[in-house]
């Protein structure tokens, strides 16, 4: 038992593995993981739209699971392993991202980092997802340019590519 674990504080020290690197930050208690990423850690690829878990623009992988970073406190990420769009793209454009471009899935682009993260996690957890499963699994990520058909096509193409590489 530590003092800090019991007594509520208005600032919280956070240490996490972010895209493979250990990072530290001290953030206000109410700060979301999304705002911590953007405002405290300078990672601006994770986007902010509805800020209440409805649009998916802020999707990241926390401890290997897809989450809306607007619905996670920065404090909660302490000790966690976080992958953002920057980490996913560290070695350049991935196969999935290339398929997004080839399918014409990218229009205004603000939702796309979140779409890519959700799609990547879908491919990792259900590599043989059917078209219906893809639509259903992606329904938490809104695209107002409505590239939905293009994104489904991109995910299907990436899945085919990964199967043939496997």
């Amino acid at each position, binding site marked *: 038992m530590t003092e800090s*674990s019991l007594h509520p504080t208005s600032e919280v020290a956070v240490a996490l593995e972010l895209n493979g690197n250990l990072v530290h930050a001290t953030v206000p208690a109410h700060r979301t993981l999304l705002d911590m990423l953007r405002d405290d850690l300078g990672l601006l690829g994770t986007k902010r739209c509805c800020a209440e878990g409805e649009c998916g623009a802020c999707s990241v992988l926390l401890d290997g699971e897809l989450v809306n970073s607007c619905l996670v406190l920065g404090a909660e990420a302490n000790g966690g392993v976080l992958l953002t769009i920057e980490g996913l793209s560290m070695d350049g454009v991935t196969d999935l991202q290339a398929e997004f471009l080839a399918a014409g899935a990218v229009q205004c682009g603000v939702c796309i980092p979140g779409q890519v993260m959700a799609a990547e996690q879908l491919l990792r957890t259900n590599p043989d997802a059917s078209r219906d499963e893809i639509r259903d699994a992606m329904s938490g990520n809104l695209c107002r340019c409505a590239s939905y058909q293009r994104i489904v096509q991109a995910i299907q193409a990436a899945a085919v590519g990964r199967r043939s590489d496997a």
Partner: protein
Amino acid sequence: MATYCRPRTVSEVLAALANAEGRGRILVGGTDLLVHLRKDPFAPTVVVDIKSVNDLPPAVEIDDDVVRFGPTARMAEISGDPFIAGHLPALGASARVVGSIAIRNRATLVGNICNASPAADTVPALFVYGSTVTLTGPGGERTLPLVEFFVGPGQTRCGPDEIVIRIDVPIPDRGHRSAFQRLTRRRGVDLATVSVAAGVDADARIVLGLGCVGPTPLVTDASPPVDLTDPAAIEGAVEELVSIATPISDVRAARDYREAMVRVLAVRAVQSATAASGGVSS
């Protein structure tokens, strides 16, 4: 502004809640709490994150005659669990439609009841199985039927110094069947406009759990045995049962539509439950 703590034991949690003097809010998944924090960012909320508590009950524990859900049981686990799908199909199905994948990865069953929304997706199903809720607080543990837990929209019998430690869902006898039906405004992720869980026991008695048609989720008494091969008999039984519904008009639907839909969904839930395996549609 809010403050945050992350206790390690249940007793520390209770101490933190006591110190918070009514301003404490338990955090596990955060899918409701963070929305509230955003709407009222200047309140001195004390966020008590219990994800590091090491003496909580396990997330999901399956016993001979009961499934116990601890505070960390998430919708993703519940909706993906084959035992739950087989024995508590209405619960599995209702957990499956809570938000998106990202939401289900965080949202918890206990959180869903504690938020006490009349639209809480899993509550009608929990009602149908006769679930109980166990709270712990300064005065020790107490267990009450889930139907007694809800007081009004956003209000429960969980005191400011208590936490919900467990939901117990009795595993129905063989021959009990159940299903969940939900109506939404769009096909993608949405809050329910009306939801219904139906349980039909081996003697063909029907119990309905109803969402969005009252200030809290509602549960009916058991009907007399119903001839399940007779659609008119099912409709008649449903008509009796849903008379407890008192829907209102709001941004999602008008009262009369809800009144009509609770009947439609209830009949479908009964039919779906008594069809081959039970299931869900939304």
